[in-house]
């Protein structure tokens, strides 16, 4: 794994605009950053990242199988009681998952370590699936990458295939609705892209803001009062459970993507439960709930993360009493986990995190975010990669 400084394409902004990738720059700061790239060997991709991702998928599904009907575990995860049956039922039916992203600490030497699993509402998808691939194509054509340069990226094809499988596996003939908070350009862009993939898979789709969803005659309806049979929601399960409609009987009449059982895995408490289930696993870091006395096993170097948090909010990094990093935010009421601190590789002051994508149950590609901080947040830059 190497970080290479390279010359950005002169027309990359125009290329991004042409593809509708509008948040390549955020408040004047680059989000898409092709002044550098990461180079991997095929061995690093296949034996380390892809293999670790496959192992983490298996571990995650095993954890859900154990926890979905375990009230004590759901309580530890601070999942509200009114959601328990919905979660258990969705797992009993094996309601399908579309996608997720494992965030890994990886330096090209040791085993990748799981920092967290964005199992419910992962973003940074279009740039990983499409714009990064376009960069590779241009690199090969223009000669700044070798003709045989490759990329770990089959996201787009797998997403379309997964939508086909989801469509085939559901006898509900109605439209597939998409929703998110419409005020977020990144979120609307993500569901625009996923909707496009669904349509290419032959599904009938529609889209509306999360706040526009209605309830009528005990079912969720869209703005035309059409029943919402299937809903892809880029809106976290913990928010749904806390919202007024989260306790509505209509919750049982719509099938959701991601399914309710995914809320177990998107919860940072799952990191503690995974470690409890598979202590010493090479791709896991020692993690405990903050109210668990065993957290002292971790020692003086740790990261503290809220059970529910997004975009690196409310994270604390400590090394032997010294605060290495701290972010603010609005999370943490439900509790925290403490995770052994792992050193991210430091490339001239840039700390990359490897986002390893899963579509269905299969590894599907990577997208790298880097920051000058050890905490990856919503402003961390997306840097492309290739396989040498």
């Amino acid at each position: 794994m190497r970080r290479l400084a390279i010359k950005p394409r002169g027309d990359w902004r125009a290329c991004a605009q042409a593809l509708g990738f509008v948040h390549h720059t955020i408040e004047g700061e680059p989000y898409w950053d092709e002044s550098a790239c990461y180079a991997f060997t095929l061995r690093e991709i296949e034996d380390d990242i892809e293999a670790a991702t496959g192992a983490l998928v298996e571990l995650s599904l095993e954890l859900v199988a154990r926890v979905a009907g375990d009230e004590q575990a759901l309580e530890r995860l601070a999942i509200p009681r009114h959601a328990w049956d919905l979660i258990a039922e969705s797992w009993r039916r094996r309601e399908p998952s579309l996608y997720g992203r494992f965030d890994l600490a990886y330096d090209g030497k040791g085993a990748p370590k799981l920092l967290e699993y964005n199992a419910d509402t992962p973003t940074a998808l279009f740039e990983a699936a499409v714009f990064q691939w376009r960069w590779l194509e241009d690199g090969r054509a223009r000669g700044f990458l070798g003709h045989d340069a490759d990329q770990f990226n089959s996201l787009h094809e797998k997403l379309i295939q997964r939508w086909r499988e989801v469509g085939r596996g559901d006898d509900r003939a109605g439209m597939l609705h998409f929703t998110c908070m419409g005020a977020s350009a990144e979120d609307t862009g993500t569901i625009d892209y996923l909707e496009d993939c669904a349509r290419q898979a032959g599904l009938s789709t529609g889209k509306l803001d999360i706040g526009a969803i209605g309830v009528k005659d005990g079912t969720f309806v869209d703005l035309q009062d059409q029943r919402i049979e299937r809903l892809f929601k880029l809106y976290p399960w913990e928010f749904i459970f806390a919202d007024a409609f989260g306790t509505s009987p209509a919750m049982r009449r719509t099938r959701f993507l991601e399914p309710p059982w995914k809320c177990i895995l998107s919860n940072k408490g799952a990191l503690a439960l995974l470690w409890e289930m598979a202590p010493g696993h090479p791709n896991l870091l020692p993690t405990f709930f903050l109210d668990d006395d065993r957290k002292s096993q971790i020692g003086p170097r740790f990261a503290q993360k809220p059970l529910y948090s997004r975009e690196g909010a409310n994270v604390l990094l400590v090394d032997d009493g010294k605060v290495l990093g701290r972010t603010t935010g609005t999370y943490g009421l439900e509790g925290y986990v403490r995770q052994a601190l792992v050193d991210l590789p430091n490339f001239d002051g840039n700390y990359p995190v490897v986002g390893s994508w899963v579509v269905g149950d299969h590894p599907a590609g990577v997208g790298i975010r880097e920051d000058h901080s050890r905490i990856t947040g919503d402003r961390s830059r997306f840097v492309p990669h290739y396989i040498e």
Partner: protein
Amino acid sequence: MKRSSAVMLIAAGTLTVGAYAVHEQRNCRIDGNGVTPPGCQSSSSGFSSSRGSSGSTSFYSSSGSSQSSSTPASTAARGGFGATGAAHSAGS
């Protein structure tokens, strides 16, 4: 090879006029009074529903693709989702 480049090229071509092109139409959503902004295509519903066909360039040819206003006859209760997320960023 870790992926099929041939498939991707076709898909990226679709995307050029597909998913992210919708951003360019964000300001074309019908406003609260049911009025389509100048320069935008009009739509009777402000809502896109289409049957996909691989490689089609017509996915976003109608109106932008979001529902933006409810049918006047709607009696549904609305606004029960979104409050918790309003103070947070929903993605990760």
